[in-house]
């Protein structure tokens, strides 16, 4: 005689115990022209207010640093800093110092002064157009961290000054990562962990992790691995989504500040680093500088893993290592 199966206790689906959370709550907010999301196990929804407060970091930073808002701090810097040192708060000063260091570490591939180039290529309005050589050379003259002077002025605290007119700062290649870091810090402080913070998928940070980590898919082919993230952050740069075609040539939206031309050779680069700001910046730098630059930077920056997807190749190139992540084959 076959005994009937034991009745299974009825549980709300998110209460089912196990190594992996049975359900995730995803709270999100729109800022910086994308969606910031915090995913955490549903049973941590008791921290919902803290999560919402943490997400407000993205809104706050967007208001302060967006160059598309005329009333933002960064817009004021861009308007005035070629005339006189403009006072900035400690947070922006620290981030600009980090940008300067990353600029040096990457041989100039990471650069937050490329806005004149983007304007010349008409990428700001997402139109896309090959510039006249003269316009391009004028734009190039305004690009480079050498034109940016970070200082202090007594009581006013840190300041920024541009050494010439036409210089503009734009935190597009690091701001989302920085905001993701800030959200993760606040989540940890509020005990709202484990949580996975992301901005449009291009910047991701773990604020704690489930026992088997956060499984993160990467775009690409069957050879592209998946990441199991327990600590650290992930940044991705690519041009599959943004760019334009002119004269039969496809141009991506990532410009090489060293040449003034759209970067070539890579389809997509993902970097795992300790912070999302670094991962964000380095993914852009490696996208521009390729495996040679990645090798040089990784040699001096342990805790950096890069997955480079060269144009026309199905096999990604994996360089470096990060203790917070393991790679898994996509096909098992």
């Amino acid at each position, binding site marked *: 005689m076959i005994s009937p199966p034991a009745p299974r206790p009825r549980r*709300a689906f998110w209460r089912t115990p196990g190594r992996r959370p049975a359900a995730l709550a995803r709270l999100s907010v729109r800022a910086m022209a994308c969606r910031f999301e915090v995913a955490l196990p549903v049973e941590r929804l008791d921290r919902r207010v803290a999560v*919402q407060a943490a997400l407000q970091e993205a809104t706050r930073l967007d208001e302060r640093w967006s160059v598309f808002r005329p009333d933002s701090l960064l817009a004021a810097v861009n308007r005035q800093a070629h005339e006189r040192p403009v006072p900035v708060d400690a947070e922006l000063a620290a981030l600009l110092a980090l940008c300067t260091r990353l600029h040096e570490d990457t041989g100039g591939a990471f650069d937050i002064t490329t806005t004149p180039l983007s304007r010349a290529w008409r990428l700001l309005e997402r139109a896309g157009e090959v510039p006249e050589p003269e316009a391009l050379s004028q734009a190039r003259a305004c690009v480079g961290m050498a034109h940016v002077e970070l200082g202090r002025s007594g009581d006013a605290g840190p300041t920024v000054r541009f050494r010439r007119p036409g210089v503009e700062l734009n935190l597009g290649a690091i701001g989302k990562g920085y905001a993701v870091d800030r959200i993760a810090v606040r989540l940890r402080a509020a005990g709202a962990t484990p949580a996975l913070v992301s901005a449009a*998928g291009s910047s991701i940070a773990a604020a704690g992790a489930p026992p088997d980590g956060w499984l993160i898919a990467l775009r690409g082919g069957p050879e592209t691995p998946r990441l199991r993230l327990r600590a650290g952050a992930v940044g991705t740069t690519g041009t599959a989504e943004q760019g334009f075609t002119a004269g039969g040539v496809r141009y991506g939206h990532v410009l090489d500040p060293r040449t003034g031309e759209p970067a070539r050779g890579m389809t997509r680069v993902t970097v795992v680093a300790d912070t999302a700001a670094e991962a964000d910046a380095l993914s852009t730098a490696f996208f521009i500088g390729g495996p040679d630059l990645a090798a040089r930077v990784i040699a001096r920056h342990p805790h950096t893993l890069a997955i480079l997807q060269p144009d026309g190749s199905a096999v990604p190139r994996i360089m470096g290592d990060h203790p917070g992540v393991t790679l898994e084959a996509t096909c098992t």
Partner: protein
Amino acid sequence: MHLTPEQQTVGRRNFLKAVAGVPALAGLGAAMAVRGPVRGGPVRLGFVGLGGEGRVLLEQVDPAFARVTALCDINPAQLARADEVLAKHHAPPAPHFVEYADMLRSADVEAVVIATPLWTHADITTACLEAGKHVLCEKMMAWDVEGCARMRDTARRTGLVLEIGYQRRYNAMYHAAYEGVIRRGLLGDVYLSRILWHRNGNWRRRGDPPSPDYDPSAWGYPDWEHLLNWRLYTRYSRGLLAELASHQVNIVNWFFDAEPDAVLGSGGIYRHRDGREVDDHVYVTFEYPGGRTAVFSSIESNAFDHYYEAFFGTKGTLVLRGESEAYLFHEGSGAQEALAITPAGPGPVLEASESRAADAAGAGADGGQTGSGDRLAAYRAEISGFCSAIRAGTPLRCGADAAMGSAVACLRALEAIERKARVPIRAGQQEHT
């Protein structure tokens, strides 16, 4: 209402999260909680009016609940099409009648489904009730308030079942929305409902008469065109308000648990000046008790918004679109904040990707498409529910009183448009009670 794919995903998940655990409604889109077969066997049904709507209902007859024993229509072509429907469902053929009075006299029917032009509803319904037959009458209830009152009073006096065919009342999605969202107060205080039905056509039908010499004048239609396009002529129809708005006002009355006090309106024949008599654009504001307002529009010049019922509250927004999609949005600390719950399967939590232009979504591993109501299932449940009310006394979803509430509101709205005045609704209703 235009919703981005992201909003749809979030709104759908929010709705499902909200209604999860609402008793008997866990399986959205599943049949309503009507059980068959019922004691006493299937109800013997006669159908009066077998045009498009009548045949939709005929298609959805569940043999566990009902058996069709008579078909009645003044148009022989409709009867032939109804025969085909029965044959397709392997149902036995049913005798034909031209006059409903003959059907009531000689056919073996316990109950009648009426799907005829609006102006005939009151006469046919009361005749059926007087003949001892239960009635499921298509909406709107009747052409005028007097007709509605006559139907309601006859049903009360005879003690027979009279149900008005508002299929949303039998749509599981609407019940889930009412029980899971409205009654639980998830929207907070709701002051505004927006209901609309926008189309970009002319509502005029084209078709050949059943025979070259077909003459419907004996039934009050001077020619074939007037019968075919009865919706466009005031003698037979009350236009967009009766055919479209009354569905949606019926839902607002249900969700607000109230009927409007007064109505303001405007409208006219603005686009299709083709001899029709009913307005092709109507805009109506219904005032409900407690400072609540429902704004309705129906136009025949643009279909972008299609049709939906939306409820805007201090804590959230509920959108019920196209009778098949439900979305819930929370008013967060910022209006942009959203919460979604997704099952965490073995797959990735997130896809890392390059940033996208403008509307970067950063979507997580999607929980996939989730349930939606089923329009046809609602018709099926409507007929089965009607039969269940006859056999087992189960409560009606939209009996005479509920149907009259929305019918009177729409009829007063027409008055408001004609008189260009604010027209009280309740006072007018009392004149006839």
